[in-house]
């Protein structure tokens, strides 16, 4: 019951973002990014990308979640908006790896990891990033960031890792 209320709340937040997003930046961004990607030569684009990556170097690339939840926490939002800004204009693509803590069953956690990766993907897409630039994969609980039992370890393992390809 509580959970469904929560997901409604999230839906409302996402809707709000969507509105804000479309009013701030029209849909030109994905096209611009595509044009840059296809038009530029290989070497040239590499140079561009290098420059660009330093622009996102300070941003967080790991985003955390609560137990049995795929709801993005507010503290990750600023960094994701930064990544989205970069991705809209760059030819780089990004891989989102979803993870779960070791509690609960493995295949359920696999699904949960995917939900978390999808939550980050959806956020980026709402920020105007083309979904074709985003690859998601879930590792479930198979690849913990830290080992050990206890909430201090678990909270570091319930995460999505973002990496540029």
């Amino acid at each position, binding site marked *: 019951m509580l959970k469904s209320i929560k997901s409604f709340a999230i839906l409302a937040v996402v809707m709000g973002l969507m509105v804000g997003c479309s009013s701030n930046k029209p849909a030109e961004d994905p096209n611009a990014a595509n044009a840059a990607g296809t038009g530029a030569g290989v070497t040239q684009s590499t140079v561009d990308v290098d420059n660009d990556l330093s622009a996102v170097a300070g941003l967080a690339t790991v985003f955390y979640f609560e137990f*049995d939840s795929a709801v993005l926490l507010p503290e990750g939002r600023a960094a994701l908006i930064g990544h989205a800004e970069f991705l809209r204009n760059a030819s780089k693509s990004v891989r989102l790896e979803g993870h779960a803590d070791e*509690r*609960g*069953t*493995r*295949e359920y956690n696999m699904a*949960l990891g995917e*939900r978390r990766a999808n939550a980050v993907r959806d956020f980026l897409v709402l920020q105007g990033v083309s979904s074709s630039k985003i690859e998601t994969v879930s590792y479930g609980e198979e690849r913990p960031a830290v080992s050990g039992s206890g909430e201090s370890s678990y909270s570091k393992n319930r995460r999505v890792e973002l990496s540029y390809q």
Partner: protein
Amino acid sequence: MKYSWIFLFILSLFATPVMARLTIEITSGVDNPTPIAVVPFAGSLGLSEDIQDIVSADLLRSGFFRPIPKTDMLSMPKAEAEVFYRDWRMLGASYLVVGQMTNMGGRYQLQFELYDVISQRKIFQKQVAGTDSQLRDIAHAVSDAVYEAITGIRGAFSTKILYVEDLKQAGAGRYRLVYADADGARDRVLFSSSEPLLSPAWSNDMSKVAYVSFETSRPAIFIQELATGKRTQMTNFQGLNGAPAWSPDDQSLALVLSKDGNPEIYTLEIATKKLRRVTDHFAIDTEPNWTADGRSLIFTSNRGGSPQIYQVSLATGRVERLTFEGDYNARPRLSPDGKTIIMVHRRDGIFHITSQDVKTGNMRILTETWLDESPSIAPNGAMLLYATQHQNKGVLAAVSMDAGVKFRLPSKQGDVREPAWSPFSK
């Protein structure tokens, strides 16, 4: 009037003691294991395996027996003529196993006998034969025969297990899919990878294994033939490719794909690769397990807000919720008789293996260790293996289906998890 009243009174009193024999009702028993003496088999000294030791260990692990140490034995009979029941009764043995091994040109033949010490009678005499490399199989065959004769349940000591090992060191062989005897012996690696492996599942004919491998940097389902080692990639869809489960006829796999946006359960016909979607819900649907008739699947879904067990009919697609107790019930497995569902259940933040009676819905906690998961039931339905944590390491443990018996399998290097108990070999 007065006399006749007395007369009636007397009649009714006389009626009771003469007619009925006294009956004493016994409503409880003990879970004390039955003492059994397994005498070292004549002619088995110096073999590469200690048969008596293997049989005793099997019987001990079943929880139903307490093998008597051989150092306590007063005599070492090898045949009926040498059995003195009184000696064994003095030791407290209820049953006695004796036998004789003959080496027939590299082939070993064991003749063994089971005795009921209390009733002083021979229960059976049997023979089993094999090569030097099959000495452990010979021992397990003895355990199976003894167990079945006394408990009335087919023994599962000759069956096999699969599990996943994580050496926890980055490198080519970090994750290993291991095949071993039910007692953990004779383990061999079926496949290893630098990327995660999970969800191993036996085909019902025991000739193949299905599992999930991340070797392509994404999850994919593979089938591997045990005899040849030949591997076939069965799925390569966008998103999840997980939780394979063989249909009772081994013609199809139930599995989980998220290619359509949500984790849904599908069936995949192995020969034709024909895919059929079974569930359709925006929630997580995963961990399918077939019912014995092959007509429906039980699975985990959080469509009600928390993970619970559901059943779906393959013919109609009708979904029915099966669990209602607690807010985390997942990875269901049906017992061989179909009467019990075993699952992972969370209570007060702790993960247990529980059983639920299909008919009454009554739930019972079977394990109270730490982070218990991946239960797999023995083909005789008497025990289950599961993964748990011990001293910060993943280990395998076993528990009897009535929770009376518990033990841990000896652990090796790294984390051991996801046990899968084989069916009976046909």
